[in-house]
């Protein structure tokens, strides 16, 4: 079996009285789409925020491409080839499409100056390639629809081009047509050899594209299996069962 590209062991994170992760494990293999599923508040987003450097864990170990870390900064995660589309999208509403796509990785001219023209041109090309339709790419992001903003956030991740791509609920604000386009994009990225980690509540979507599914419940990994060994119905029942089986203490 291929060695994992990402391995998280016994990861813990507490926010005041709330124990978001209680020693969660997670593994992703190169070139695969791994979905993380679980009910709201199960710790999925906390887990990927730790992996992408947005949060510092209280304990546990993270291994990326055989390099061990006790915690990561955003910069370190980027250097390891991790690109993330966050649930909150992490867009600057005052900037336009190019301003957001190139934030932190600007194209310069004469060494010190931003090449606005080239960045806009590359943005147009990127959005066309990804079939993302935004009529006016020079308008600030605040004037765009939720779906357009989500698509822009995905486009930014594609442009950043790491080999481990994390998507946290990437299509929650999108229409059916846009969602299927993004799903096709995920499959293309997989073909290019990217490792994709996807958080989604849409189990049918998960079964459409994921190779492997990890179920997180109450801050712990409770199951991990190949998609072909399960079905959306079975997975749904598993999540509901776990939720109903929670003690009052666990609920708190």
């Amino acid at each position, binding site marked *: 079996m291929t060695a994992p590209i990402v391995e998280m062991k016994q990861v813990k994170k507490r926010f005041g009285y709330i124990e978001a992760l209680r020693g969660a494990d997670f593994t992703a293999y190169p070139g695969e789409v791994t979905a993380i599923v679980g009910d709201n508040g199960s710790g999925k987003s906390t887990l990927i925020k730790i992996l*992408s450097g*947005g949060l510092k864990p209280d304990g546990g170990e993270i291994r990326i491409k055989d390099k061990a870390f006790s915690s990561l900064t*955003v*910069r370190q995660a*980027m250097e390891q080839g991790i690109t*993330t589309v*966050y649930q*909150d999208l*992490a*867009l*600057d*509403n*005052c*900037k336009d499409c190019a*301003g*957001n796509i190139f*934030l*932190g*990785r*600007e194209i*310069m001219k004469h060494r*010190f*100056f*931003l090449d*606005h023209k080239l960045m806009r041109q590359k943005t147009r090309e990127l959005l066309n390639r990804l079939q993302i339709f935004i009529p006016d790419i*020079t308008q*600030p992001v*605040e*004037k765009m629809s939720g779906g357009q903003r989500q698509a822009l956030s995905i486009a930014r991740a594609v442009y950043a081009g790491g080999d481990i791509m994390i998507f946290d609920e990437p299509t929650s604000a999108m229409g059916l047509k846009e969602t299927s386009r993004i799903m096709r994009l995920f499959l293309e990225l997989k073909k290019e050899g990217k490792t994709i980690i996807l958080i989604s509540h849409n189990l049918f979507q998960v079964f459409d594209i994921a190779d492997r599914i990890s179920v997180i419940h109450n801050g712990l990994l409770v199951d991990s299996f190949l998609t072909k060994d399960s079905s959306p119905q079975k997975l749904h029942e598993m999540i509901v069962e776990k939720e109903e089986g929670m003690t009052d203490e666990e609920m708190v």
Partner: protein
Amino acid sequence: MKKWFSRYSQQIFLFAVMMLICIVLTVQSKYFLTWKNIRNILEANSYRLILAIGMTFVIASGVMDLSAGAMVSMCGVIMAVGLHAGLPAGAAVVLGIGTGMAMGAINGVLIHYTGINFFILTLAASGMLRGISLMITDGKPITRFGQDFIFLGIGRIGEMQLSVIFAALLVMLSIPLMFHMKWGNYVQALGGNKDALEKSGIHVGGLRISVHMFLGVMAAVTAVIITARLNSAEPNAGMNMELDAITAAVMGGTAISGGRASIGGTVLAVLILGVIRNGLTLMSVSSDYQQWITGFLLLLSVLISEIRVRKTGTLMK
């Protein structure tokens, strides 16, 4: 063209307002539209513009610094102490700029790392800095400096006072810095969405400190001009100058919640405030009204900005 008008609507509006005020004042006073008076307006507002440029960067980054006026007085006092201790003018200016940078850095560190509200923090800093200035000077102005230092405040190159040339140069440097260079781009992003900037791998703490240091440098340059011009460093110098600077930045179109800035707008706003002050003086109106008008214009600018945000349904913080 339509997009250009929409993008610069506030600046065009300000320009029209300024023209209107100028027309009214030209009709009211025969002295208003004279070269001497125009030069007076530019000279009297050059240092205000310098501080307002610094404040524009700070506001674009999503906070405000209420200690800017006190920083001006503190830098002036430190420079004066240095000059009286025998430092040459150049070294005293460097000392003043260093003081401004250090005070800005302390503000930046405290705002970023303590999480205390910037209003409270910079208000407290203002009180403390004024107190230190008073303690150093014993409440009395420090006067009489060498001619080479005084030259920085009243010296001229041709028809124009050095301070006006400084201000013009700083404006010309600030425009590319804010809109065409990484640092300014990040400063605006810091006000637009700090989390987005952090998630892009930018060290937000360092950036926050650097913006406040920039304001510190601008406060020090302002202090050089005021101290040299008056040939006196006063512990009460720069009183309420932060109000002028905030008013100019917000009136000029810099978003009060950060994320968007306009250097041209700040220049226009400083000129409008200057023209109003000058007009009131020409019409022999008491200077008490000038303070009232500045406060009123700040309130009006914030109201207009708020209405615009609601009307366009923006998602700004």
